[in-house]
């Protein structure tokens, strides 16, 4: 039993006036625990839609989605929210931090929504921020942090609930190449520590960090293969 089991997922958007957009036309994917998967595809391939469905932000028009064995495609809004809170860690291209709160509060937020008490929350948030090497900046607001640091805060936020999967959408899209490499190194580390990582990108050299690449085109899986020549970080593997 894997973490993610998508069977024949179809997603159609109704744009009105009998015009429909067939974003996904029967996608089947299985992802196991501790995999490092990249989902690739050009604009319009449906990768964003697939990510939204995997992340329980959206539900398929038809098809089954089993998440850790649970049938998610039939869940209601509150149940999906709960899964997003506890099992899924999002990392976005534009970081998506709350601008008026400091790093600590941003990382705490999923725990607040999860009903964790104040003392426990702070402890876990601090621990996670230390884990991503931001222990000395916990009270900085996002505008007082560099791009790379902001993304680390976002990653800490994604990690703090110890989720089943980390879902990253173009995580280095808004970063320069050096900082981007640092972030990809962090992902490698997290993967080594046992996390399941799903990366969505349209850049081949980012996708090459993963162990497996699923290519989408026009709403269907075009290929699903193990990566032969990976980009790795020996230093990360050692930590």
């Amino acid at each position, binding site marked *: 039993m894997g973490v993610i089991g998508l069977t024949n997922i179809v997603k159609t958007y109704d744009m009105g006036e009998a015009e429909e957009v067939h974003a996904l036309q029967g996608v089947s994917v299985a992802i196991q625990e501790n995999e490092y998967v990249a989902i690739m595809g050009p604009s319009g391939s449906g990768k964003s839609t697939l990510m*939204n469905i995997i992340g329980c*932000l959206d539900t398929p028009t038809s098809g089954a989605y089993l998440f850790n064995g649970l049938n998610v495609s039939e869940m209601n809004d509150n149940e999906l*929210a709960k*899964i*997003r809170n506890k099992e899924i860690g*999002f990392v976005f291209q534009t970081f998506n*931090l709350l601008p008026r709160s400091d790093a600590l509060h941003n990382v705490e937020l999923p725990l*607040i*929504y*999860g009903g964790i008490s104040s003392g426990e929350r702070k402890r876990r948030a601090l621990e996670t921020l230390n884990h991503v090497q931001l222990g000395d900046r916990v009270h900085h607001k996002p505008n007082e942090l560099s791009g790379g640091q902001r993304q680390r805060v976002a990653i800490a936020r994604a990690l703090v609930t110890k989720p089943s999967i980390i879902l990253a959408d173009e995580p280095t899209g808004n970063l320069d190449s050096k900082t981007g490499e640092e972030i990809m190194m962090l992902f490698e580390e997290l993967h080594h520590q046992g996390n399941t990582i799903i990366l969505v990108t349209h850049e081949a050299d980012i996708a090459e960090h993963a162990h497996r690449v699923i290519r989408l085109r026009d709403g269907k899986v075009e290929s699903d293969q193990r990566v032969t020549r990976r980009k790795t970080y020996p230093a990360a593997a050692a930590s």
Partner: protein
Amino acid sequence: MYYLLELKEGLLISFHAVRANKMRSVLTTLGIVIGIVSVTLMATAIEGLNRAFERSAAAFGTDVMYIQRFSWVSNEDWATIRNRRNIEVSYVNKIERQSQLTDAVAPVAFTVRRVTYGSNSTEDAFISGTTHVYMRASGSTLADGRFFSPEESSGGRPVCVIGATIAENLFPREDPIGKTIRVAGYPYMVLGVFEKQGGLFGTFTTDTRVFVPINSFQAKFGGRRDITIQVRVADPKKMEDARIEMEGLMRNIRGLPPGKPNDFGINQQEALTAAFAPISLVIASIGLFITGLSLFVGGIGIMNIMFVSVTERTREIGIRKAIGAKRRTILMQFLVEAAALCLIGGIIGLAIAFPLSLIVDQFLPTAMPVSVVVVSLLISLVVGVISGFLPAYRAARMDPVEALRYE
């Protein structure tokens, strides 16, 4: 426990939001502040009016009947009343002898004269001539001294009991008891002073009156006047029976054949209260409605700004939902923000209304009891929740995917 956390997070968010947009928050809250100030002032004026009325009505005594030529509240026209016979002092003995349900009967004669003490004077003091029974047949109380004794009363001695305002005017720095004042030039010694009554009924309060024994009154100011007979009912529970008995007695005394209507009035405090109540209600309703409108407008202002706030924070709402905030959580967040804004407006409004009500009190009686404060705060809270609901609902229902895409 979870709700407390949500509330706390909601309050934290509201605090940040208000601080980030100080000018906007001030302008929005202004509507609520003005609304609360006007509603509170109106409520204090109404409360003051009611209390003033109650105090004034109390002066009439709850178990006292006033037998006069006319009724206080009637649809008799002036022509009918004008030609009525006077109520005579001689009736008093007859009533005392024949009435079983009353236990104090006092005649009260009335005129207007100038009273002086040294260089102080009051031009139009109300002079009343009555007997020693008066105190038992009225609702007034003495602040100092005593009323006439039976001997002073039957002997028509030159003694008097004065009202609080007369005392203030004639004796600003002395104790009036034992001093001699002049009523239209005649000397009268002060035996006692009435407690201040204030109130709405200018002529009926004791404040501006000087009471002298009726025998002295008639000798000095004429005996052919129309008087009022004040009668106390022995058992307040038998008020209605006493009234009927009195009516029968008076008809007898006046020699009215059956079928002829009363040519006198038997008046009670109740009649006043009953007449006042609907008027008070109408005034209150209209007043509160109009001021309530301003609060309503304030609420609309809040709703408007909340919609703007929700739209502005679309991205933020998307983020929160992606991290796992439930719809209800988002709803609470914005509801708390609206309610907090309104509550702050309410508190500021009350802080402004209080000193204002003290100023208004110089012209109209006002009273700001705790109930008005509590109700005002509750109203602002309710306005906040109602105004904030639609925008908060919209926020809660946002699709997280679209919200995250919002620029």
